[in-house]
């Protein structure tokens, strides 16, 4: 019974795949399904680069067997943007320069969104505690905390729905919410804020 047929719903798309018992969730996501936004860092449950949401909770996907996630909903960093529009946490990291090399960023953002869901208005101390399972070797964390604060303010104030200040951002692969969804989202994807007064 070393092979198992499992179903994963990743960023809203259902996938059926066959995995070995020992396949870790992060490898199923990256190597089998192509969701390479989730990074593999320390592989020892320490650095948090592999953080995804499993049924809504932030977990380290290097410390989970893919077969344990059978039937579950998995959300990865690729699912944060909504039809090419940045999630407030992504805008926060951009505006506050919350990344340098960017390796830790997908995990940081997935943990931060889990934190903000539970605590929409965290103090700086609570943000640091919330992100203690994510390591960054570049920024010194200051700007990451700023980025999460920025996102909390945006999400709390409803500023996204009201239109943001960034007129247009050139998009790359980062805006492809689902690598399996076809050309519509992957060939070219403009990330932009709605203009003032524009309806959804």
């Amino acid at each position, binding site marked *: *019974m*070393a092979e*198992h047929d499992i179903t994963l719903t990743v960023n809203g798309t259902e996938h059926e795949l066959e995995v*070995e*018992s*020992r396949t*870790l969730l992060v490898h199923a996501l990256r190597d089998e399904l192509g969701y390479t936004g989730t990074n593999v860092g320390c*592989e*020892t*449950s*320490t650095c*948090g680069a592999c*953080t995804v949401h*499993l049924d809504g*909770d*932030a*977990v*380290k996907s290097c*410390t*989970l*067997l893919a*077969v*344990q996630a059978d039937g579950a909903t998995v959300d990865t960093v690729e699912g944060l943007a909504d039809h090419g529009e940045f999630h407030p946490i992504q805008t926060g990291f951009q505006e506050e320069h919350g990344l340098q090399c960017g390796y830790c960023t997908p995990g940081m953002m997935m*943990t931060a969104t*889990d*934190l903000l869901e539970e605590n929409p208005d965290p103090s700086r101390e609570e943000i640091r505690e*919330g*992100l*203690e*399972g*994510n390591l960054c070797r570049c920024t010194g964390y200051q700007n990451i905390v700023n980025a999460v604060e920025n996102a909390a303010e945006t999400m709390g104030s409803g500023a996204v729905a009201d239109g943001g200040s960034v007129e247009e951002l050139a998009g790359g692969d980062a805006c492809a919410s689902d690598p399996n969804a076809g050309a519509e989202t992957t060939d070219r994807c403009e990330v932009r804020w709605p203009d003032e007064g524009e309806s959804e």
Partner: protein
Amino acid sequence: MFPDEFDYHEAESVSEAVDLLEAHAMEETELLAGGHSLLPAMKTGLSSPDVLIDISGVDELRGVSVDGDTLSVGAMTRYSEVLDDDAAHEHAPALTAAIEQLGDRQVRNRGTVGGNLSHADPASDLPGPALVSDATLVVHGPDGERSVPAEEFFFGMYATDIGPSELLVRVELPSADGAVGTYAKKPSPASGYPMVGVSALVATDGDAVSSVRVAANGVMDHGVRLEPVEDALTGETLGDDAIEAAASYAADDLDEAMMMDDLQASAAFRAQLLEVYTKRALQDASERVSASAAAD
């Protein structure tokens, strides 16, 4: 890093888990809970079981409930689920104080109370709270359930009273009944596991300590009560002088030759940390008692 190959079975009930344990008795078999101790050990090759029996999805092993004066925590209840439960904070404050400091957010979303206690890592955070809470660990095997007091559950490093075809099904904690629970820990900067972690449960009558239980993780090969500290503090006025005096007895009953001694901390350093963190756990309790008295 990949684990060696193994067969994976998902149990849907306690009895199915016991059946699977018996069916695979001749193979190296491990129960899989949250996996946050087992999977890292398997990835690094420290553990290579032939068979994994996943019990994390067994409904009857999950959840927190109150029955009379007893709080019952299902073995597969995740740390985050305990922290979300008001009754757990009220009745088992020593347990929740330790869980708040355990691992990190992602680990607490996945790791389980029963997995922690069954694994019995000397540096686990939960044996101390189980000891000060006078918890009973309920184990299920082919002959049904049996109850083991926390004092008799931990045998040593990774060794407990759980038999080969048994599993821990729940932890029963008598209500703290208003006592204050605290946890003070010196985490390893790398792993977050405690080099020393001290759990305290303090009940007061006016200014005097009517009962106190203190236990330490990370110091010996399993969690230990610090009875000399408890004896020194019982009946005293809960304040800095009494706490400092009591904490000075923290290592009195412990044989330094048997203390944990590794690259992170020598036994002598652990003995020093033990006194300091015993003091901090008790000072935290004192502050909470004062704060709740001021609020009344």
